[in-house]
C-alpha cells in the first residue's frame, strides 16, 4: 500500500520561498484552502493578500515580474484563467513574466461542481503562447513542483494537489521528462495527475490477464518532446489510450492525437476523460466512476481498443492496490 502524505505543498512552498527571497506568495482569499496559511502567519513580509479580485491580481503579478520578483499565485485553478483570461494573456503570458500559477483543485478533485472544477485548464493553457504547463500526480511531485516551476524562464501553470495524497514516485519532477512506469509491448497508456494512480491499478490487473502494458506518466505537458513519445508509440503492437482528469479536447488525449497525426502513425487512439461535458459536485471516487475516469473505465477502454473482453471487474481492481513507493523504485529505473 502506498504511503499517504499529508499537505506536502505547505512544507514544499515554505522551503522554496525561504531559499529564494525574490519569490512572493500571492493569495486570492483562498489562503488556507491552498495550504499557505501557515506561510502567511510565519512570513508576512513575503506574503501578499490580493483578495477576491483576480483580474487585478494577474496584472499586479505582471507588474511584480517587471520589478524582478517571481510571484507564486495561489488559488483554485479555475479562478486563474476563466475570469481573468485577458489579464493572464496580456500581463503574464505575452511578456513572459516569471509568474508561477499554482492552480489547486484540478478537474474533479473537488465536490465544488462546475464553478470550482478546472476541467479545461490544460486546453486553455496549451493554446496560450509562452505558457508552460506542469501537473502533479503524487506527493513527491507536489514536493518538487515549486522548484520545477521556478526553474522556468517564463510563466508556468501548475495543476497542484492538496491535502492527503499517495507517494507513488521517489524522484522529483524533472521538467520535460516523462516517467516510464512500465515498458510493455501491447498497449500504451498515457496519463497525468490523479489518473496515473488509476492506471497503475489497472496495469496490475491487465498484466494479470496477459496484457503487456507500457505506461507513461506526464508531469510536463507543455512544452512537449514529441520524439521521445513517438518511440514509445512505435514500441507497442496495439493502440494508445489516454486517461485524463480533464475534458477529452485539448488535453493530453489531444496532445497524443496531434503527435500521432503529425507523424503519420497508423494506430488507434482512445481518449478517456470528461467527454464534452461539465461535471457536478460529488466525492472524487463517485465522480471518477460516474464520468468514467477511474481504473475500471480504463480497462474497459482497453477492451474497446483491443476488440476483446478481458473479464476485469471492479473487484479485481480493488485488490490491485498501488504498492509502496520503494517497490516501484525499480520500475522507475527501467
Amino acid at each position, binding site marked *: 500500500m502506498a504511503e499517504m502524505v499529508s499537505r506536502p505543498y505547505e512544507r514544499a512552498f515554505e522551503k522554496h520561498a525561504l531559499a529564494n527571497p525574490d519569490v512572493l506568495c500571492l493569495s486570492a482569499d483562498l489562503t488556507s484552502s491552498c495550504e499557505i496559511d501557515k506561510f502567511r502567519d510565519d512570513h508576512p513580509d513575503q506574503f501578499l493578500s490580493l483578495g477576491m479580485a483576480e483580474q487585478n491580481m494577474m*496584472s499586479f503579478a505582471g507588474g511584480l515580474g*517587471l520589478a524582478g520578483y517571481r510571484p507564486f499565485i495561489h488559488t483554485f485553478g479555475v479562478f486563474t484563467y476563466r475570469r481573468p483570461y485577458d489579464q493572464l494573456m*496580456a500581463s503574464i503570458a505575452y*511578456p513572459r513574466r516569471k509568474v508561477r500559477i499554482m492552480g489547486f483543485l484540478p478537474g474533479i478533485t473537488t465536490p465544488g461542481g462546475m464553478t470550482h472544477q478546472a476541467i479545461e485548464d490544460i486546453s486553455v493553457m496549451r493554446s496560450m503562447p509562452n505558457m508552460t504547463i506542469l501537473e502533479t500526480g503524487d506527493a513527491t511531485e507536489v514536493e518538487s513542483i515549486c522548484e520545477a516551476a521556478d526553474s522556468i524562464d517564463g510563466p508556468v501553470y501548475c495543476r497542484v494537489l492538496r491535502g492527503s495524497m499517495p507517494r507513488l514516485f521517489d524522484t522529483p519532477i524533472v521538467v520535460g521528462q516523462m516517467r516510464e512506469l512500465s515498458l510493455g509491448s501491447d498497449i500504451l497508456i498515457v496519463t497525468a495527475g490523479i489518473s496515473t494512480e488509476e492506471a497503475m491499478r489497472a496495469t496490475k490487473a491487465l498484466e494479470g490477464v496477459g496484457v503487456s502494458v507500457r505506461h507513461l506518466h506526464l508531469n510536463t505537458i507543455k512544452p512537449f518532446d514529441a520524439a521521445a513519445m513517438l518511440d514509445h508509440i512505435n514500441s507497442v503492437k496495439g493502440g494508445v489510450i489516454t486517461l485524463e482528469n480533464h475534458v477529452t479536447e485539448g488535453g493530453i488525449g489531444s496532445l497524443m492525437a496531434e503527435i500521432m497525426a503529425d507523424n503519420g502513425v497508423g494506430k488507434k487512439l482512445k481518449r478517456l476523460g470528461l467527454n464534452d461535458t461539465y461535471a457536478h459536485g460529488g466525492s472524487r471516487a463517485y465522480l471518477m466512476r460516474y464520468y468514467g475516469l477511474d481504473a475500471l473505465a480504463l480497462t474497459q477502454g482497453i477492451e474497446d481498443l483491443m476488440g476483446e473482453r478481458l473479464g476485469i471487474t471492479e473487484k479485481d481492481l480493488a485488490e490491485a492496490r498501488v504498492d509502496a513507493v520503494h517497490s516501484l523504485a525499480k520500475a522507475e529505473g527501467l
Partner: protein
Amino acid sequence: MLKNEKTTEEIALGIRRRVFEHAMRNNGGYLSQACSAAEQLAWLYNEELTLGAPTLPMIPKPFEGVPHVDNPEYHTGAGYNGPFEPDFDRLFIAPAHYALVAYATLIEVGRMDPEGLEMFNKDGSSVEMIGAEHSPGMEVHNGTLGIGLSTAAGLAWGRKRRGEKGKVWVYMSDGEVQEGQTWEAIQCCAHHKIDNVKAIMDVNRQQCDGAMDSVMEVGDIRAKMEHFGAVVAECDAHDLNAMRTAAQTPHEGKPLIILAHSNPFHAMPILEERFPRLHYVRFKSEDERARMNSSIADALDIDPIDYEGAH
C-alpha cells in the same frame, strides 16, 4: 536626467501640429486625443517624470518579433523613456490608442526622430497604431483597457519593497472606469498603501461609441475613487499651472489620481462638428477634409497641410 529646452506649452502645440499633419495626410486619425491629451503628456515628459536618456535608436527599428523563447533579442519600447534604474520613473500609457499622441510627444521632447511617425501603422513597423509593448515609449501591452493601473500597482509595490525611489506613473482614460478591474486596482493600492503610484486621467467624457453618458453612465468618478481609497485631485487639462498644483497633492499611503478635465476639441474647435463621434476621426468627404485642414491649420497657426500625393 534629460529635460527638453522647449516650454511645455510649446511641446503641447507641437504635439497637436504633428498629430494634425499626420491625420490630414492619412485621411483621419486619433485627432481628438491630441486635443484632450497634449498638455498632459507634454507636462509628464517635460516636467514631471524623472527619466534617463533614451536607450533605443532615435529612428525606431522595424518589428523584430514578439516575446518568445526563440526570440532572445526581444525588447520592449520602454527604452525610449530611458533605462530601468532605481531612481527613474516609469510610465504606462494605459489607453494604447493614444499611441499617435504619445509618439508625437516623444518627438517633441527629443526622444524619437520625426521619421518615427512616418512608420506609424505601416506593415512591418514597430510604431503600431495601438501601442504594442515593443512600440516606442511603451513598456507593457495596454491595448485592453483597464489593465494599466493594476500593472503599475504591482511594479510600484515591488519597487517600494526594494527601496527604489522611482515612481510609477499611469496615463489613463476616463472610459476605463467602466471596467471593474480599475476599481480592483484602486482598492488594492489602498489596502497595500501603495503611494508611489500616480495617475493622470484624461477625463474627456468620450468613448468609442460616443459620449460616455450615452454609453454607460459612471456617476461621480471622484467620489467613487475616494471611497475605494485613492486621493483624487482635479484640474483643467489645458491649464498647466492647475496640473502642477494637482500633482503636489499629498497622498501618503494612498495612490494619487489626477482627474484632468479636458475638452475633446481643444485647440481644434471645428472638431465639435463631429461630436459625439470623436474616438477616431475619418473625413467623410474631400470637402470636409479640406475645410478641417484649413480651419485646424489656422487654429494651430500653421499653413494647411499639403496632403496631395498622400492617401
